């Protein structure tokens, strides 16, 4: 599997829209023995890093208290969704404000496929793992079905057109309670069950080092695995033929066409991929809420609302458009801070909405923080935190 490692060579540069001289080694390796050095040999180190990361992620739930795990898993739903959006906006250059709609599509699809049709709800009772895969596929198909619009519009026009999908989803969920559940009580989806291992286990018998491995711990492992897989797949595609086509479409459609890229097709592929990622994130959202799928009462606030669509946009801008790693950091900023601030200050994430007597509740503080971050980033570092990170590592390497 040593073929996978080209990512490091072009990875950091591939995602950036801007030009950053500092990010490359000044001494590019030249040909040895006549053959050009296309692949710098960093294979071993990279696999060691991946291995170390997996071990750390495996140990985290054993040492971290449950409340922090809940914050982490919420951040990871954001990370998976944001990776999809950053590919669409940052790599393929298409603005979308419909990400929360595709979260809803994923969540509803999974719930309908996995749960059995009791209590007047529509349900197919398929195995949960199969339902997960199908829910992602359905989200991708719905995203691809948007192609007649996404292929014709660009920029802010596409953004506004895609926003209408959020309204459509909100309305459909309200008029179809047998599918999406009612706005007051919702409906429940099944936990993921892999070979008898229930990821929603409430009364665990399994314990590691004296720590009972319950729902929080299991979901952390599951979400960490899904996030790693989502990253791994996206990395390969972005560094490969698809990513090259997207960047060409983004920067110059005529040049892309002349090089053999079907612009209309690649725009629709980008939308489908982004929607698939949002769909996966949507399923993760449902699990995170203990399997509860509940449509929003208002279109501008709630789990699948315009506010969430904009939160995702904030993540990818803060992280750096087109950067997969940046999307993860952006998710931590936008989804993590409102939950972590009360945990750190009061030791209890239920204080999310209470302000303790001041106007500055954690939610308000977070909005202020990421509002300020966006302004600062757009002004001083349009490449986002990703570009900042690359500059820092380049400086560290030099010193």
């Amino acid at each position: 599997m040593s073929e996978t490692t080209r990512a490091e060579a072009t990875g950091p540069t591939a995602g950036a829209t801007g030009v950053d001289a500092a990010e490359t080694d000044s001494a590019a390796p030249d040909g040895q023995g006549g053959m050009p050095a296309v692949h710098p040999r960093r294979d071993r180190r990279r696999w060691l890093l991946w291995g170390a990361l997996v071990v750390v992620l495996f140990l985290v739930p054993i040492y971290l208290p449950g409340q922090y795990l809940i914050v982490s898993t919420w951040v990871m739903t954001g990370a998976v969704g944001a990776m999809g959006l950053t590919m669409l906006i940052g790599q393929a250059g298409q603005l979308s404000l419909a990400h929360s709609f595709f979260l809803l599509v994923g969540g509803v699809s999974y719930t309908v496929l996995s749960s059995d049709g009791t209590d007047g709800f529509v349900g197919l009772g398929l195995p949960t793992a199969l339902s997960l895969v199908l829910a992602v596929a359905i989200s991708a198909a719905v995203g691809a079905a948007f192609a007649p619009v996404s292929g014709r519009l660009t920029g802010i026009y596409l953004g506004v057109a895609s926003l209408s999908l959020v309204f459509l989803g909100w309305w459909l969920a309200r008029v179809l309670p047998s599918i999406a559940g009612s706005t007051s009580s919702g409906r429940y989806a099944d936990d993921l069950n892999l070979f008898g291992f229930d990821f929603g286990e409430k009364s665990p018998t399994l314990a590691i080092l004296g720590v009972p491995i319950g729902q929080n711990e299991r979901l952390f492992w599951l979400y960490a695995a899904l996030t790693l897989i989502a990253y791994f797949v996206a990395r390969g595609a972005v560094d490969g033929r698809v990513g090259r086509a997207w960047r060409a479409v983004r920067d110059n459609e005529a040049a892309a066409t002349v090089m053999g890229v079907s612009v209309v097709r690649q725009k629709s592929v980008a939308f489908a991929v982004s929607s698939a990622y949002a769909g996966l994130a949507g399923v993760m959202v449902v699990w995170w809420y203990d399997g509860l799928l509940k449509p929003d009462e208002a279109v501008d606030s709630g789990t699948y609302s315009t506010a969430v669509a904009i939160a995702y946009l904030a993540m990818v801008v803060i992280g750096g458009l087109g950067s997969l790693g940046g999307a993860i950091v952006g998710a931590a900023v936008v989804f993590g801070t409102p939950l972590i601030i009360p945990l750190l200050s009061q030791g209890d994430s239920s204080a999310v909405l209470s302000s303790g007597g001041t106007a500055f509740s954690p939610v308000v503080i977070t909005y202020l923080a990421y509002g300020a971050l966006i302004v600062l980033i757009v002004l001083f570092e349009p490449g986002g935190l990703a570009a900042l990170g690359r500059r820092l590592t380049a400086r560290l390497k030099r010193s």
Partner: protein
Amino acid sequence: MPDTTAHPTPGAPPADVPAGAREIPTLAVEDVTVRFGGIVALDAVSFSVAPRSIHALIGPNGAGKSTCFNAVTGIYRPTSGRVTLGDAVLTDTPPHQVARLGVGRAFQNLALVAGSSVLDNVMLGRYSLTSGGFLSYGLRLPRTMRAERRHEERAAEICDFLGIGAHLHRPAGVLSYGDQKRVDIARALAVEPTVLLLDEPAAGMNASETAELAHLIRDISTGLSISILLVEHDMGLVMGIADRVTVLDFGRLIADDTPAVVQKDPAVIRAYLGSVEEESA
């Protein structure tokens, strides 16, 4: 098979075809008219690019040179007439499939992805020669990754040939203007074209860079033995390297001959220096 020339076999055709034996078809522009609303940008223009020749397309600003290029590569659909490459009719081909027929094009205004590495930019030229979508790259299917490496090696070879082999992993946007032009040409060559279209390659270059470029174009022509069609303003460059020159003025073809003959053509002189009658009047 790879021969033993000093150069790393400049753009040798795919290894299964002996170098030089690849059939190079004639590019023929037949009676092409392009209209934008009421404006006739190209008016019944016909000329053909002989296999393995260097053919220049010149004319004053707004003469229709770029329009002609865009008609050949399918960016514009001609109102009438057609463009053929051998048996293939380019004007009936969807624009994104023209590359597959063996047409490579370098752009006037550096249409590179500035933040991506040189190798990544050049690899875009391999797009129609490769396959594999989101999942086969995402999952790193062994077959896909093997093909990717093979094509990367070829892309690196082409970069070496163009003298940018040392910059493979640098972002294209940080290179000098001249080197970026080379990346653009490398990308066009990565298509493995039978005809290479160069849109004002010397634009923005100083005299010594232009001289180097002339060298390079000749190297490409002899090394790869493909046809080259270039649009150019720089007369020195054109007259020095072109086998044949086609002159456009206001969308019409006014001359089509060898450089020596075209240089003396009164219609051409008039187009470039203004009307002779006016001066004598």
